[in-house]
């Protein structure tokens, strides 16, 4: 099979490799667009998530500030400050129930103008208690008292978000805390102290983490980049511990931090993952804040404007989560690829088989055709050479027969001479046969290229050659306009010589032959006859003995004779030569006749011959 130069595996690979590459390219494209779009989806989800969380943070703080303002304007408290000391019980009861209902405030306090706690309700894990008088303390030195009391009525102090400190120590368990304070005035407008709320920061952090719908984690950073809520509790509240001062977002993720610091809202991706930053200004414009103090009894280090009080929400999707999606997609696509490869391989296999089969068929066909044409040519050459060499002994038979007949006629006697005569007659017949065979094989072996040939001229030359016979039988030959066509002139001559010769030969004994040679343009009978050329129909008609319609095809075969040798000479090869010549010219020859009604031969030939036929000749 391989000797044909086209193996099945080659046929397979020729189709399969490009197909495999094309599918791989397609899936790569799908992979990259899918990955990019998944990234985009994550990015949008993260963005909308941090936006939502920002609103929650703001709403929570806003609600705390509202609570503070309601308490600062409590009518009972105002009456108490105006001198109605009885009202203190009512205020205490209100604060206690407020504490229970709200559940957000660790302490709710009223401190007088000296910083002394007058009322203090401890949340006490949902069972608020009013701290007895003897347990109340003076907080006059604390920054949150000083900062709050220094404000104008209606202004709000918001402490930094930090951890509660009890007796100089960070309270354990950790108690994230935001203190909100505002001055309280009596009915004359004089500041008489402050209302102070210890807002439970954990609740804020919890509400963020609970509402968080992002893919990864939510981080909360303060203005300095310290983690208020981080991935690891050990990273949190770095500013509260001496040994954690360096644990900040910008020290852990410097590249992301750089990007974040320049923008209020931005997304950053690097090898750590995807960060979605959203800066929050939780304190409204009218409120005041301070940077707080790291030690319990120090004044606040500086006062900070509301616009500088900044937190940042960071939606963080770690790289492993991001790449998990990508990996899942890759695995899925790999599966799809394998499946497609399997299907393609199967399909291509059958395709390759079919293709190879068709190529093999074609090769076989071509080989057969060329073998056929070669063997045909060899046969014709053989016939030519053979008939040539056959002539030689025959000639001797004839010549020595003649010598015998002339030199020894007396010795031979009548019978001997008759034998010799018959012998010579048979040899002559055989010579005719061989000559005719030679003519037949010459149609292809001695073919000349096609040249424009004037058939009128050809027929006239034939008539000159046949002059003797024409006059012998008193024949009349009529020629009407014949075309000029691309043909082998010698073969055309032979064609007309045979046909006109036949017409002269097979004439009725009592009637001189009339032969008509005419031509007309014909309509193509089948699609194989080209219509872009002129199709000539050349007709040779006679008034001779004709033949039975049944023989109209058989007469074109080699050595086919319809008459005995006694009546008409010939080897029965003339018409097969005619057909062979016409075939070589791409035309057809047919015959019509009835006994005693003459014969009509129709030749259909094109005016032009294609280059291909010419070359083949």
């Amino acid at each position: 099979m391989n000797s044909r130069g086209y193996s099945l595996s080659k046929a397979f690979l020729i189709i399969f490799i490009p197909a495999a590459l094309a599918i791989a390219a397609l899936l790569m494209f799908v992979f990259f667009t899918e990955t990019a779009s998944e990234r985009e989806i994550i990015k949008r989800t993260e963005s909308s998530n941090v936006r939502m969380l920002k609103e929650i943070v703001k709403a929570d703080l806003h609600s705390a500030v509202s609570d503070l303002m309601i308490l600062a304007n409590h009518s009972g408290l105002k009456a108490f400050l105006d001198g109605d000391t009885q009202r203190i019980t009512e205020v205490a009861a209100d604060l206690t129930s407020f504490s229970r209902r709200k559940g957000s405030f660790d302490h709710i306090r009223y401190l007088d103008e000296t910083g002394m706690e007058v009322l203090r309700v401890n949340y006490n894990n949902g069972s608020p208690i009013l701290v007895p008088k003897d347990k109340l303390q003076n907080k006059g030195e604390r920054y949150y008292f000083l900062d709050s009391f220094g404000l104008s009525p209606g202004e709000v102090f918001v402490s930094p978000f930090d951890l509660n400190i009890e007796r100089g120590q960070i309270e354990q368990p950790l108690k994230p805390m935001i203190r909100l304070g505002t001055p309280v005035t009596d009915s004359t407008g004089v500041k008489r102290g402050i209302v102070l709320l210890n807002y439970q920061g954990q609740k804020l952090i919890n509400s963020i983490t609970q509402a968080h719908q992002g893919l990864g984690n939510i981080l909360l950073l303060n203005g300095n980049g310290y983690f208020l809520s981080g991935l690891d509790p050990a990273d949190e509240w770095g500013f509260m511990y001496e040994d954690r001062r360096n644990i900040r977002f910008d020290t852990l993720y410097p590249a992301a931090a750089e990007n974040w610091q320049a923008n209020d809202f931005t997304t950053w991706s690097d090898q750590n993952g995807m960060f979605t930053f959203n800066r929050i200004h939780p304190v409204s414009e009218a409120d005041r804040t301070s940077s707080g103090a790291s030690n319990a009894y120090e004044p606040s280090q500086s006062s900070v404007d509301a616009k500088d009080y900044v937190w940042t929400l960071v939606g963080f999707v770690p790289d492993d989560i991001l790449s998990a999606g990508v990996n899942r997609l890759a695995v899925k696509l790999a599966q799809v690829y394998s499946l497609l490869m399997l299907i393609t391989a199967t399909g291509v296999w059958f395709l390759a088989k079919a293709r190879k089969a068709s190529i093999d068929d074609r090769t076989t066909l071509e080989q057969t055709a060329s073998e056929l044409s070669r063997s045909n040519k060899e046969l014709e050459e053989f016939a030519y050479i053979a008939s040539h060499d056959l002539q030689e002994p025959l000639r001797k038979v004839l010549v020595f027969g003649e010598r015998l007949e002339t030199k020894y006629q007396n010795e031979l006697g009548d019978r001997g001479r008759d034998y010799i005569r018959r012998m010579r007659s048979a040899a002559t017949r055989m010579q005719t046969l061989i000559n005719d065979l030679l003519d037949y094989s010459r149609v292809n072996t001695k073919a000349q290229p096609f040249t424009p040939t004037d058939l009128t001229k050809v027929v006239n030359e034939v008539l000159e050659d046949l002059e003797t016979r024409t006059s012998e039988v008193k024949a009349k030959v009529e020629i009407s306009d014949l075309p000029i066509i691309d043909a082998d002139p010698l073969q055309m001559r032979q064609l007309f010589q045979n046909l006109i010769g036949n017409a002269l030969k097979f004439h009725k004994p009592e009637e001189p032959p009339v032969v008509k040679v005419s031509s007309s343009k014909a309509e193509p009978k089948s699609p194989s006859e080209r219509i872009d050329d002129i199709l000539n129909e050349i007709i040779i008609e006679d008034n001779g003995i004709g033949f039975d319609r049944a023989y109209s095809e058989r007469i074109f075969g080699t050595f086919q004779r319809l008459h005995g040798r006694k009546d008409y000479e010939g080897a029965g090869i003339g018409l097969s030569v005619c057909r062979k010549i016409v075939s070589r010219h791409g035309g057809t020859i047919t015959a019509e006749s009835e006994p005693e009604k003459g014969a009509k031969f129709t030749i259909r030939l094109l005016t032009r011959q294609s280059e291909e036929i010419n070359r083949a000749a």
Partner: protein
Amino acid sequence: MPPETELITILLADDDEEDRMLAIEALEEARLANEVKVVEDGEELMDYLHRRGQYTDPESSPRPGLILLDLNMPKKDGRQALKEIKEVPGLRSIPVVVLTTSKAEEDILRTYDLGVNSFITKPVSFDRLTDIMKALALYWCSIVRLPN
């Protein structure tokens, strides 16, 4: 025959014994008294003409006045021999009549353009052959005075 006529030697080159026999018989029948020398292939022909081998004696191998040459011979065929004859100045003037068996052969040979003086298609009839020999003798051996 006119008195100035010399009888020339005819050299017949043909491998076919019967053809040689017929040719000689035809010459006899034509009553030609010319001496006929016979060679059987192209090599012998060239040896004869160049007086080589068995043909060194000018008495027994006289220079021919006419060569009757068959084309299909063994060893060296007629075409090759003809070509060589026409290349040698001393031999070029000897007329060569080619014996062929067909018109086709004649056509082929013509294309060589080797200066053949005449063609004889080997006839089927002995009478024809005799006629041809007569005509040849008349033309080449009697009327034309051949150079010696």
